[in-house]
């Protein structure tokens, strides 16, 4: 049985880890981007970011003072037993967010959109967001937190089947150029592209592609995997590096997630997960033990299932 207090403790710990420690996959990714960067200013920015990660981990302080919009992704195994119910899990994650805001400290970012009032703890109406998913044959609960900036770097467009891959490429260029100037989207970034679904799932898929897959991971559909690499080359061929300086470092990686969509449409969304790509995951096992990691493992074969049954079912 998993107690609600263990869920709170794990959620608190990943809030801290996400804010402070850059995930290894991103660190290695940015180092390999840096090796290919021949422009002095762009190279200097990346080198400075790497020393910033070291300072953050060394001092146990947040790598970026802009907390972004801290949120959770929860995957519950079919066989997981927990004593507080689903609302208990949500309450635990709110409590963990408030405690971490005070203790790290994280900048209280969340305000009411109209009245600009706040509770100084990053908790409010629909905040932190919690997205739920499920996993067959498992007795664990995975909780992932993501702290992603919220102002620049994301866009959505309804394209049509006839627009084809050209349409996707143009839209990717439009988005990266418009938000890459002066580095507003804090590139080099992990770029997430959502294709298909309904409009809201299209946004969700792109966001999850950016934030919930690690650098180097490829989509299991080989056609999509090839498109990921092709679009990444396009992003890095814009000629723009960090801060919008001349350079070749726009994307550390590019991930695509798809959803079956309306027969007449091809909605596309683009998201950029910034230089301070903040994510951390806790697995709470059936016996209440906790394991921490930085790979969310969100997109399981079950998660990407294509019809009534799935691989391994």
């Amino acid at each position: 049985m998993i107690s609600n207090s263990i869920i709170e403790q794990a959620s608190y710990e990943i809030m801290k880890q996400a804010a402070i420690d850059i995930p290894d996959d991103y660190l290695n990714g940015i180092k390999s981007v840096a090796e290919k960067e021949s422009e002095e200013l762009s190279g200097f920015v990346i080198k400075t970011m790497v020393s910033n990660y070291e300072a953050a981990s060394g001092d146990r302080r947040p790598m970026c003072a802009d907390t972004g919009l801290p949120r959770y992704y929860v995957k519950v195994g079919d066989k997981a037993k927990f004593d507080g119910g689903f609302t208990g899990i949500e309450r635990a994650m709110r409590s963990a967010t408030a405690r971490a805001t005070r203790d790290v400290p994280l900048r209280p970012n969340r305000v009411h959109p109209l009245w600009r009032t706040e509770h100084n703890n990053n908790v409010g109406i629909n905040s932190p967001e919690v997205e739920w998913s499920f996993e067959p044959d498992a007795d664990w609960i995975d909780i992932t937190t993501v702290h992603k900036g919220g102002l620049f770097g994301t866009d959505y467009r309804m394209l049509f089947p006839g627009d084809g891959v050209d349409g996707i490429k143009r839209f990717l260029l439009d988005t990266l150029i418009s938000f890459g100037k002066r580095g507003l989207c804090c590139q080099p970034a992990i770029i997430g592209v959502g294709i298909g679904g309904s409009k809201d799932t299209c946004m969700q898929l792109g966001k999850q592609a950016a934030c919930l897959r690690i650098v180097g991971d490829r989509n299991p559909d080989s056609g999509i995997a090839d498109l990921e690499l092709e679009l990444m080359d396009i992003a890095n061929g814009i000629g723009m590096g960090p801060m919008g300086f001349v350079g070749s470092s726009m994307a550390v990686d590019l991930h695509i997630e798809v959803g079956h969509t309306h027969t007449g449409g091809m909605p596309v969304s683009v998201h950029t997960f910034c230089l301070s790509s903040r994510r951390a995951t806790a697995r709470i096992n059936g016996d209440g033990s906790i394991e921490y990691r930085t790979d969310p493992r969100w997109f399981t074969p079950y998660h990407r299932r294509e019809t009534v049954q799935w691989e391994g079912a």
Partner: protein
Amino acid sequence: MLDEMSIELPVTPEAIAKLELGSVVYLNGIVYTAREGVYDKILVKGDQLPAGLTRSSNVNFHCSPAAAPVENGGYHIGGVTATASFRFSKYLSEWLDLTNTKIIIGKGGMPVDDYKNILAPRGAVYLTTVGYGTGALLGRGVEAVEAVHWLDELGIAQAMWMFRVKDFGPFLVDSDLQGNSLFAQQGELVNKKIEGLYDGLKKPALHRYGETDDRKDELM
């Protein structure tokens, strides 16, 4: 290698004159934070500046710190990150005249016309933070909170924080006393390649406003 230099604050006109676009700068002394909350309070509502501000600091940081009060009465400053400066153009000429500020630090610079028309004529320059996420490095550079003004009234993000800083940086010089801009120069170089990027990619069937600015146009 980019040029690197350390500046003692308050900054002197001689030190400002030596700054070249793209140089790397570290600061020692006192910097203050001010953004729309403070600007509105002083310039729109007409409240008084804190006594002694203009003597102790002439560096305005567009920043909201990750700060929390601690039990003995001080503040714990975790990360320090700049916010985008372009939104504050409308306040700047009056603010520089009132405070005699000579360095603006922020995220992403300001339009080059602001440098030519507002900053340069007043002997002021703009420094940009690097990469924008360097919260930990900048947090390390804050030795102490000398004072915080209007914390209850404006909140942590909008209050005026007076930071005593040491080896505070790195920052990049974006503007000089001629009103030139590093961001603008780099942007022009990037722009040379942009049209070619779209070669051979056919346009989508449904257009959007922005691709045409005439609202009487149909988008198909």
